[in-house]
């Protein structure tokens, strides 16, 4: 048995190190280390409750809006108010803009460059893929970065800026959209649709949304010009449709009133029960204790703790590790393509990427509908008072999965603030029952070490990890 330490594991948001125990060139077991601790939960303690809206976006530069939305939801829950109809539409639009931009960034800048590696030089697809997707130098970025920047102009209108907006409030948004701006929003969505259909898919968004099985997907991709077909071609050749399976247990808090909350395991969708979540600190450099529900959670540093190997807690649902993200959302929503991929081969590198790009095709048309539904002149923000002693929960979906905030307020100040981020679920360490986290499980059995193909690179990045959120 040899141990291999892989890091810095880049092109993930933040810092990541993975320890692999190898036997005959295969991974026997993996330990995932999130090596950066910032302590945002402590930063919040003692602050005025609404200060959370200014602080939490700074947890993450890529899921900044998701953090804002979770805080705003938790504060709204505490205040007993709900956003106005316009405020809710604006929030959906702001969150969807970030989530779709993140899917795009992940695919083009973080994930695809690995296929340009010299290790794949002999493959029939390699030279074209390297030309288009090589890190920084690939042809694709010339179009993708302006398309992304243009799409994020939605934020200029809806949220002032991205990242780190204060526009999202418990009662909706600070930024009322005018009749003229509503037209501009539609034009920006149309422009992004054009990029996706022409370059990413080589088909209409409706055509992509209707793909209902793996066979249909691969037949659709054959001979089609487009970046998604190019990925499917390379991924099929490398067998990435059958690599990277974790537990096939999925969780979603539900997104935009479009995709439902729930869990999925063994073909069964179940209702989501927020009480079933707890966090275990066994493998983290944090004080030991029984697993706690985040509403009673603690984050107390114990940097010298023996046998710990990460700053990340291990969240569990009904005591089990769960995978979150676009694939989880689409499986729980019952999209036939996502279900077929998972039921045939289990969650895989390919299934996770497909689900992410499928969301681009599904959510952009919904965004067009939300813009049309905006009523300029009607209120964008509801108002209310914060009780002095109260608790609140905010559960949202970031691009990369389920994000929860749990807060309690005492004598008008934040007394406790606990956060479970998507990658906290996916990249969690072993818990008190020695159950590995989803990525730790997904890596077992893969080739690694001297002379091995860079498979583990694809598997790790297939989760679209956000390490700055993971520990926060």
């Amino acid at each position: 048995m040899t141990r291999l330490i892989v890091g810095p594991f880049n092109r993930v948001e933040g810092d990541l190190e993975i320890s692999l125990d190898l036997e005959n060139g295969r991974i026997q077991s993996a330990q995932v280390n999130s090596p950066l601790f910032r302590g945002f939960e402590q930063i919040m303690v003692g602050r005025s409750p609404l200060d959370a809206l200014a602080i939490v976006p700074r947890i993450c530069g890529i899921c900044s809006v998701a953090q804002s939305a979770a805080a705003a939801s938790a504060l709204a829950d505490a205040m007993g108010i709900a956003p106005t109809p316009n405020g809710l539409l604006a929030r959906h639009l702001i969150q969807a803009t970030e989530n779709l931009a993140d899917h795009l960034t992940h695919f083009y800048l973080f994930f695809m460059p690995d296929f340009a590696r010299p290790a794949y030089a002999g493959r029939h697809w390699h030279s074209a893929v390297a030309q288009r997707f090589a890190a920084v130098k690939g042809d694709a970025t010339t179009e993708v970065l302006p398309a992304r920047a243009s799409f994020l102009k939605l934020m200029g209108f809806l949220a002032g800026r991205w990242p780190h907006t204060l526009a999202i409030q418990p009662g909706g948004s600070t930024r009322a959209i005018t009749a003229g701006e509503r037209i501009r929003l539609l034009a920006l969505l149309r422009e992004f649709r054009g990029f996706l259909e022409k370059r990413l898919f080589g088909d209409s968004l409706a055509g992509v949304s209707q793909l209902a099985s793996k066979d249909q997907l691969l037949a659709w991709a054959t001979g089609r010009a487009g970046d998604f077909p190019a990925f499917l071609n390379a991924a099929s050749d490398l067998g990435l449709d059958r690599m990277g399976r974790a537990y096939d247990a999925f969780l979603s808090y539900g997104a935009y009133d479009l995709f439902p909350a729930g869990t999925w395991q063994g073909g069964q969708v179940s209702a989501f029960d927020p009480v079933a979540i707890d966090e275990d600190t066994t493998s983290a450099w944090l004080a030991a204790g029984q697993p706690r529900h985040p509403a009673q959670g603690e984050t107390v540093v114990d940097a010298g703790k023996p046998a710990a190997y990460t700053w990340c807690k291990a969240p569990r649902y009904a005591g089990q590790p769960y995978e979150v993200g676009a694939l989880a959302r689409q499986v729980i929503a019952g999209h036939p393509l996502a279900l077929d991929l998972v039921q045939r081969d289990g969650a895989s590198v390919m299934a996770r990427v497909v689900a992410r790009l499928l969301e681009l095709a599904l959510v952009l048309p919904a965004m067009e509908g939300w813009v049309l539904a905006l009523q300029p002149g009607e209120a964008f923000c509801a108002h209310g008072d914060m009780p002095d002693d109260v608790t609140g929960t905010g559960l949202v979906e970031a691009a990369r999965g389920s994000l929860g905030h749990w807060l309690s307020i005492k004598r008008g100040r934040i007394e406790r603030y606990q956060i479970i981020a998507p990658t906290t679920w996916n990249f969690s360490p072993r818990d008190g029952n020695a159950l590995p986290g989803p990525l730790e499980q997904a890596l077992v059995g893969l080739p690694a070490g001297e002379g091995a193909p860079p498979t583990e690179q694809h598997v790790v990045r297939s989760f679209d990890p956000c390490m700055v959120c993971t520990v926060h």
Partner: protein
Amino acid sequence: MKVLWLQSGGCGGCTQSMLCSEPRSLFDELRDAGIEFLWHPALSLESGDEALSILEDCAEGRLAFDALCIEGAMLRGPNGTGKFHLMAGSGRPLTEWVERLARHAKWVFAIGSCTAYGGFSANTPGNPLEACGLQFDEQTPGGLLGAGFQSSAELPVINIAGCPTHPGWVVDTLEKAALEGITAGDLDEFGRPLLYAGGLVHHGCARNEYYEFKASAEKQSDLGCLMENLGCKGTQAHADCNLRPWNGSGSCLRGGFACIACTEPGFESPGHAFQETPKLAGIPIGLPTDMPKAWFVALAALSKSATPKRVRNNSVADHTVVLPAIRKKGGGK
């Protein structure tokens, strides 16, 4: 110009923001200005050992680079060990890497307010992370590299402060360095490039008419000036956010929310709620830079008394409720 980029106690948002550079692709823009990333944690191909060997070669002076860009606060804790951020794969504190690399850099750029002054990481009560900026601990010179540090271009750390930084602040500063270098005269006393920090956020604010008349917003989403009640520090914060728009047409003020002065050291703990203006006897404590209090009070009283109905009514609504009057030719008697 070869750029080496590392991230530490921050959120990565300055890189995400930089990728919004426009109108051209960031990579095309930088390439044509002669700027290349030797390694960037979010963008480069090299991972694991390949990346570590680039960093080690740079730290040992075997591989030349020009600019060291650091994004995120320096975490020196617990107890000076740096264990709150050991660089993945190396087992060594990120702070140690920064100290080694800074010795070989022509220019050291702090990307974002965390890196410049410590940021939120330095604002847990008691600062258990022992977090600081590269050359400042909030307003106090020092930080990780020390008040006397100079890079080989004989400059202190260049603090491109902001939370996050505007893509233009970073791109323009890097391009200026590549084109003709940077001198001490290009920076303010907190090390910020004057090319973006030479004015105030207030300059160009779309709510200026409301400001002039002290027609103030009373609640979130109101159109009025955010200074009197909702915590806006645009008249004190050094940056060009309302002259150099964000994401096409935005800014914090245009987004309807207060400037929290994110380019200023110590903005994270203002001593009051972010979205409320602290007042003494009804007068905001944080008055505009350069303005004597008595003048402000007198001017405010005068302008409030002269506020047109249109401005007053619109200031407390989230959309225009009174349109500007149209003056017709030959009328107006």
